[in-house]
């Protein structure tokens, strides 16, 4: 009896489900998939605005910060191509080469600032729309600096002096977020790789097998800077991830931190009154080597072979021209604009003010790590962790980096 009832219920449920999912839909479906969960609200506003203006389009936006890569790969392999999807540009998007629509002829391309073009170009063709610029360097607490009469260091000697002065006052100079292997990967990018003269050729050399990390002067120097940060850093840096480091920094437990402007939201939620600034990653007394790294983070692509690719292209152009979209991008998404002529005042993120100014002067590095093979940033970061643990020497690390690079590019 019980069995009959439960079977009947199951049958009813199944009928119900089939019924609800079989409702015919006349609208054109656009699938929009990206990471950057801090922008979830902005994405939802953008899609709503577009759908208001184009009632026959239905955009399903998904902001996935945990496993977007897996989902995208599974979808592509099954032939289910989303109309809009996001990658990190450079080499990261190369993996998806077969599904990138050529956008070189689109109107929005002319409106992009030159600094953003490198990231979205593949084999001479523009294949995406950059989302925002983000910057990376040494964040510092202006209030603490003022309290002890310190000024922004611009050279290594000045940095060491600042560290000594802070230490004398009982303040920990650096908060080091070294539990995150990707952060160390970005550190070695900014504090070592980016300072290699003619970085682009060096990268080509690595891919061609003619250049090596082993013995590289700038890469070896990055370890000296790392040692400096460890020496003047908090205890037990390997247990500090994003949350622990940001909490400590926001509470004033450290005066400086190597990170990017994207931590502002976390810092702000702990102390909205924080006075912060950013300087470049300091590696020497040559000021030109101590720059911030500013580059595009996040690129929107149009899936080649997707059902409504033409609508997707229209959406990307719309993002560049529509007033409502511009407002959402600047104020809710809080982008540093990639389009010429868009005004940026830094009000949404004080950490961006210095990098933006430096970018206008052309005094920044572009990001090296997106040009590396997939997975290299994390692997190299882990090697640096082994160095911190004392298991590997600097020479060992660089030698292993060469091996891993070769493995990943086989």
């Amino acid at each position, binding site marked *: 009896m019980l*069995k009959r009832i*439960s079977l009947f*219920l*199951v049958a009813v*449920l*199944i009928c119900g*489900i*089939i019924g609800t*999912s079989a409702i015919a839909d006349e609208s054109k479906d656009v*699938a929009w998939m990206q*990471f950057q*969960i*801090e922008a*979830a609200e902005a994405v939802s506003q953008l899609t709503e605005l577009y759908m208001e203006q184009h009632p026959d389009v239905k955009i*399903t936006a*998904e*902001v*996935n*910060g*945990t*496993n977007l890569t*897996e*989902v995208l*790969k*599974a*979808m592509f*392999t*099954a*032939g*289910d191509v989303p109309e809009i999807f996001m990658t990190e540009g450079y080499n990261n998007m190369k993996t998806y080469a077969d599904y990138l629509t050529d956008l070189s002829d689109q109107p929005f391309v002319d409106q992009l600032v030159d600094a953003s073009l490198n990231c979205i170009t593949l084999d001479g063709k523009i294949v995406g729309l950059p989302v925002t610029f983000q910057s990376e360097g040494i964040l510092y607490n202006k209030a603490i600096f003022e309290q002890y009469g310190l000024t922004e260091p611009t050279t290594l000697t000045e940095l060491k002096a600042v560290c000594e002065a802070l230490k004398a006052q009982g303040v920990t100079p650096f908060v080091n977020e070294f539990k995150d292997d*990707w952060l160390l990967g970005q550190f070695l990018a900014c504090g070592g790789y980016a300072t290699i003269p003619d970085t682009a050729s060096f990268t080509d050399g690595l891919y061609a097998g003619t250049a090596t990390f082993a013995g590289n002067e700038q890469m070896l120097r990055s370890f000296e800077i790392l040692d400096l940060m460890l020496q003047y850093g908090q205890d037990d840096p390997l247990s500090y991830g*994003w*949350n622990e480091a*940001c*909490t400590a920094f926001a*509470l004033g437990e450290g005066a400086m931190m190597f990170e990017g402007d*994207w*931590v502002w*939201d*976390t810092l702000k*939620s*702990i*102390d909205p009154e924080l006075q912060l600034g950013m300087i470049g990653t300091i590696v020497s007394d040559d000021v030109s080597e101590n720059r911030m790294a500013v580059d595009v983070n996040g690129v929107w692509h149009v899936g080649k072979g997707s059902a409504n690719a033409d609508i997707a292209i229209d959406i990307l152009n719309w993002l560049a021209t529509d007033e409502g979209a511009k407002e959402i991008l600047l104020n809710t998404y809080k982008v540093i604009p990639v389009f010429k002529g868009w005004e940026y005042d830094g009000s949404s993120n004080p950490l961006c003010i210095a990098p933006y100014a430096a970018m206008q002067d052309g005094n920044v590095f572009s990001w090296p790590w997106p040009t590396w093979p997939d997975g290299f940033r994390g692997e190299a970061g882990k090697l640096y962790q082994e160095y911190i643990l004392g298991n590997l020497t600097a020479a060992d690390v660089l030698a292993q980096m060469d091996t891993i690079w070769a493995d990943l590019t086989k």
Partner: protein
Amino acid sequence: MRSKTQKWIRHILLELLGLLAALLMIMPVYVVVINAFKPFKKILTNTFAFPDSFYLDSLLYVWDSMNYLTILKNTILSAIVVVVVAVVLSAMCGYKLSRVDDRKSKVFIVCLLASMIIPFQSIMLPVYQVVHRLGQSDNLLGYMITLVPLYAPFAVFVYHGFVKTVPRALEESAIIDGCGPFRVFFQIVFPLMSSTTASIVVLFTLWVWNDYTLPSLLLRSAQNKTLTTAVYSFFSSYYTRWDYGIASLTLAIMPITLFFIFMQKYFVSGMVAGAIKG
């Protein structure tokens, strides 16, 4: 022979230790729940403190933005359908494989075991291809159908083992009385394994409730999402929105906790004893 006082002391000690152990076990869950009522700053700075005032903003925001009632309905529906279908089919399968213990049954059991070993990520891409080719992606029903073979092997394995505690004599006498094979199973054997079924029901409900990878892959549109996808939308490898994340997690774990408390009575011993005598 222990004196009464000694026995009494031992008893009290066991009770107290039990209480302590229980409290220690749920301490992390307690941490999650209390932080649902705190603003973001307090979560990061005073993680373990009891909230000094009940801050409801996170919970309200999350309830609204994750469309709680819809996704709760989806999750409950998935749980019910998957559990009923998987339990019935697996019990049947496990029972027969155990009773007819020939070579092919042994091979089947071994094959089913294999599916419980492989990490799902390795077969994620192929599974999606299969599902998509069958036209079942972004479809709650398709999702449920895919879950059944993923969970069933475990239940088959469990039933395969526990069927041995039901004496064959019972089945044989039922057959002699003229019962067909279905009646023998559903009216005699299956009810006697209700304790096992209770465990499986609880475990499967839990698995469906906490499943993330498959829903993130198969369920696209907002109205099809389940609780876990909503919870994970606040967490990422970089930036984590703790206040909303913890609030959504709390909303997600409450129904299943109530369910488990409700299922408690099926684990009380003595439910099954005596049934065998008849």
